[in-house]
């Protein structure tokens, strides 16, 4: 049985369809990355799964529980970490954890709180107000609070936004440690390096699920060709390339230019022309990255933000 098994989810706000027939399965113990641009429906989909929103259409189960009728039981079994820090800033770290422990009826409260503080390394800062913590510590506190009741599924909504690289690295080490203990994780993110640390990724754009699979599968299935250009006056080269058919993306990376296209023949022809016109520019075959794939997805899907 899949931990998450939802199909055909639709959620509309007014006349805007925010989630448009989303189907998703996550197996037990898997870490699945949920990617997509801002406003693509990631948060809404996660909220539907943890019972905070009712879908307009579609059915599904989370931990074998119906998302429409058993949301109260889902809430007890799931740990949900919100995008914005949503614990009480005017309560201390200890008081926040005690509050959560009591809400989940964990007994004895003191033991759970003390153990969580110990694991977090926050025992000495127990009496510090949560609002005075830095972004990275807030995120660690939030994670600790939502795994305290030992959920079977963890839903994380952009948990590492605004957190420094070292804290992010530690955060992901922790996620993998939890997953090896049998916990299933669905995590939304904008960071490509984080996507690459997931077992599988799902890409959603403007409410529609566009791709799903391992990182390699997603990159391969996108069917993109990438070339790396080097040489003088690359800004002029870039302008010239943007006009050409077959060139989908032109992006400067340091002293190089990444050129991506889905039509390999057309792209090669365009590059050959440019190479002739601009002296000293060399063209090498490059590797398509996940980011290239996502930018391709984003420019290809219709914007419904308006």
């Amino acid at each position, binding site marked *: 049985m899949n931990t998450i098994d939802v199909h055909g989810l639709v959620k509309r706000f007014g006349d805007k369809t925010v989630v448009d027939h989303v189907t998703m399965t996550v197996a037990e113990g898997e870490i699945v990355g949920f990617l997509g641009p801002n406003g693509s429906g990631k948060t809404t989909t996660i*909220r539907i799964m*943890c*019972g*905070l*929103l*009712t879908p307009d259409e579609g059915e599904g189960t989370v931990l074998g529980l119906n998302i429409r009728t058993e*949301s*109260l039981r889902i*809430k*007890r079994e*799931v740990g*949900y970490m*919100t995008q*914005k*820090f*949503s*614990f*009480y*800033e005017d309560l201390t770290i200890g008081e926040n954890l005690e509050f*959560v422990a009591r*809400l*989940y009826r964990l007994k004895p409260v003191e033991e759970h709180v003390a153990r969580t503080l110990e694991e977090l390394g926050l025992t000495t800062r127990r009496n510090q107000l949560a609002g005075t913590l830095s972004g990275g510590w807030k995120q660690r506190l939030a994670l600790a609070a939502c795994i305290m009741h030992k959920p079977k599924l963890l839903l994380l909504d952009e948990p590492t936004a605004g957190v420094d690289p070292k804290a992010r690295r530690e955060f992901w080490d922790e996620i993998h440690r939890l997953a090896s203990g049998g916990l299933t994780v669905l995590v939304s993110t904008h960071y490509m390096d984080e996507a690459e640390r997931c077992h599988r990724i799902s890409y959603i754009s403007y409410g529609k699920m566009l791709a799903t699979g391992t990182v390699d599968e997603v990159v391969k299935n996108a069917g993109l060709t990438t070339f790396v250009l080097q040489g003088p006056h690359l800004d002029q080269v870039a302008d010239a390339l943007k006009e050409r058919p077959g060139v989908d993306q032109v992006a400067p990376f340091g002293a190089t230019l990444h050129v991506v296209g889905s039509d390999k023949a057309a792209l090669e022809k365009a590059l050959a022309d440019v190479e002739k016109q601009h002296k000293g520019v060399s063209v090498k075959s490059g590797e398509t990255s996940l980011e290239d794939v996502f930018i391709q997805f984003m420019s290809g899907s219709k914007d419904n933000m308006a």
Partner: protein
Amino acid sequence: MNSVFSFARLGALLIKEFIQMRRDRITFAMMLGVPLLQLVLFGYAINNDPKSLPAALVATSNDPYTRAIVAALQTTGYYRFDHVAQSAEQAEFLMARGDVSFVVTIPADFGRRVERGDNPQILIEADATDPAAASGAISTLSTVASQALLRAQGMQEAAAENARGQLDVVVHRRYNPEGISQYNIVPGLLGVILQMTMVMMTSIALTRETERGTMENLLAMPSSPLEIMLGKVLPYLAVGAVQVVVVLAASKLLFAIPFTGSMSLLLTAVLVFVLALVLLGYTISTIARTQMQALQLTFFFFLPSILLSGFMFPYRGMPGWAQIFGEIFPLTHFLRITRAVMLKGAELPAVAGEITWLVAFVALFAGVALVRFRRTLD
């Protein structure tokens, strides 16, 4: 010059401010609609010289003189005899409950004494818990009654002048013989102060969670709407209890308000009243989207409740529609209870009706709040 003041920059600020004002519909509606509504409402409802006050008649005989006096009192416009009491005890109960503002007693031998020229007496008892409300009615009393009696006796106006004083009108200002207005205001203030703090504090209960972003987390964790509601309102019930003790102690020590009734009855009523208030505040917080809106709604509620409940102006002096409107405020009923219990020494039977009203408010507000509570973020 340009660096200190620029019309272009002022213009930018003004345009931004007007756009924001227009976006916040509730505020906009309140700024335009509410003043007009309040002007009409209060302009017609408030009356400092209340007329047509309910009165009870205790009269055992039905002679022409009695009828003449009653008719004359009614003609003044101050008295409205809508109760006929069979006995003094029944009249007493009517007054304790606040059903009547006056009890007019005309003794059985009144007619006989008039005919004998033997200084007839009538007794008028006025509910002086609100001294202002009764004063107009009392001041016209003696002249009107004497003239009516003389007319009934068929005497000329000139002779009437000489004969004045024959009729002896005895006025009892009940519960507050010296007409001290604090006796009326201070017990009322208990209700007003409680209302201010209780409704205001609980009206931001949920909107504060929403604005700080903690609502999403609270809803994602296993807590039921009933638990959240009780968790939000019960702490303020405790705050209210402290306030009650402070206000009651101060009214005793500073203002020497007489305390004639049962303390336990008063405290029971206060408990129900405060519960109604915190639930009302909580209901507001399920409706408002922001703390600002919640406070606006609270103030929108405060003004009519203070003006139409009988706290500032005599309730009985308002027109009928305004009196009916005044019934929708818990404060109205609480004021009747505190004044009845503290000043009149009323027992449970006299205030049972008002307590029932308060219990109904508790049930209503709790019901609305639970229905309105959004268990999801939809």
